């Protein structure tokens, strides 16, 4: 009996330390000293945008995040990246678990109610990914009677159905990689989301030459840097850093490195960004 009690106490103790460890896992406060640490939220599963491979992080979002963090005074080894899935982004910022979010985070009015945005640092648009030999899908209005894949909870597929092709069939999965799998197997005809994400998948080593991005965007997604609501101080600094990144040519370099190989063409009028939203 005594052994059991000791075991139970031990487990309770472990659980408690676990909780404490989680509690410590917060973004650093304001200020930009030499040894200060910063926690930044990114996506872990979007090749070309934000991808975790082992202990390495790659992608456009990651490179922009590193540049901005450097301008804010955080050296690269003081950055901790944290996964921020779409549904958790507002909460992670609100309770301070991350200080900034670079995660293909489109600026919308509903989101502005909860968080503040700096940027935009990139303007993407919704597009379609099809098999490389496909010729009949030229845009969203050619999808009637076809099968279209997207991710549960994303509004992109619904938009196609409502605005462009009433008789399209929607397949939703919990991740884009399953959509790519289904597209490869021929179970769906196209995959829709932002052209940046599609380009990332198309240029992955395993998919090279199998898919192509149609290249006819039908929405405007302005990727912003998510910040805690009302954090105008950081917002101004981030915008200055982004401006510097564009002016110095580092932005173009990051783009060429991460999304260039896929042949993705962004709207030249808005990329690289020339103006940034006012911080509020």
């Amino acid at each position, binding site marked *: 009996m005594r052994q059991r009690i000791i075991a139970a106490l031990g487990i309770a103790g472990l659980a408690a330390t676990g909780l404490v460890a989680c509690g410590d896992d917060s973004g650093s406060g304001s200020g930009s000293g030499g040894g200060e640490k910063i926690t930044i939220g990114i996506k872990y599963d979007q090749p070309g945008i934000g991808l975790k491979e082992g202990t390495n992080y790659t992608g456009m979002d990651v490179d922009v995040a590193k540049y901005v963090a450097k301008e804010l005074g955080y050296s690269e080894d003081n950055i901790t990246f944290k996964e921020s899935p779409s549904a958790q982004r507002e909460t992670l910022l609100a309770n301070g678990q991350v200080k900034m979010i670079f995660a293909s985070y489109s600026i919308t009015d509903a989101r502005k109610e909860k968080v503040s945005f700096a940027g935009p640092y990139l303007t993407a648009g919704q597009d379609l990914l099809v098999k490389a030999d496909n010729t009949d899908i030229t845009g969203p209005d050619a999808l009637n009677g076809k099968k279209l894949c997207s991710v549960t909870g*994303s509004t992109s597929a619904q938009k196609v159905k409502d605005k462009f092709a009433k008789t399209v*069939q929607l397949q939703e999965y919990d991740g884009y990689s399953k959509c790519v799998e289904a597209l490869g197997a021929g179970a769906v005809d196209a995959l829709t989301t932002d052209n940046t994400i599609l380009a990332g998948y198309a240029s992955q080593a395993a998919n090279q030459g199998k898919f192509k991005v149609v290249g006819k965007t039908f929405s405007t997604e302005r990727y912003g840097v998510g910040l805690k609501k009302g954090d105008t101080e950081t917002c101004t600094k981030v915008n200055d850093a982004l401006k510097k990144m564009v002016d110095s040519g580092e932005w173009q370099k990051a783009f060429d490195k991460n999304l260039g190989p896929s042949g993705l063409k962004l709207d030249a009028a808005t990329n690289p960004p020339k103006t940034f939203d006012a911080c509020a």
Partner: protein
Amino acid sequence: MDVISEFFSEYDGLAAFRTTIYLTLLSAVLALLIGTVVAVMRVSPVRVLQLIGTAYVNIVRNTPLTLVIVFCNLGLFLQLGVSLANKDSNTFINDNNFRLAVLGLSVYHASFVAEAIRSGVNTVPLGQAEAARAIGLPFLKTLRYVVLPQAFRGAITPLGNVLIALTKNSTVASVIGVTEASAVMKVMIENRPDVLFVVFGIFAIGFVILTLPVGMLFTSMSKRLAVKR
């Protein structure tokens, strides 16, 4: 609180919960059938059947449900070409995913049903089966007329637990694109992050409305139908 009216109008939350109910009921019936067969195999006197039943329960029960459901879609449908709906129909994807989800849910929960029924069988005193044998009933008739009717009445509480778990587990079907309650919740969270907790609240209440009466019904049934010994 306009988000509540949006739930009913724009997102058709009631239709989503209807899908949840259909998923649950169809899977419950199928799981009860498969589970009963598996339980009978486990208590049968034939060694091979016992082994098959035990293997089924241990393999299926210890596989994560998400894996089972994803396998139904990516494995059965995409790789092996098994489809459960008319390929030319213009609702093929929805029908096929729904049926694959029912298949996955019932196969998974059948293992829990089987164990619940087996626990019910264990509540039947050995003397009952011996008496049935003594009057000359063969194994299947012993089960059919003597053991199983008492076993089901003894297994009502655990079966109710399985049904409640099944109701909530049906949300996993959203990973292959069945638009049940949790899939609609994800869409609402994507569009209205400003009212995150209200959205959570609506769906939490929805599930409580589904599961609480089931729990109460099964509790009262277990009292009324218990075998008086």
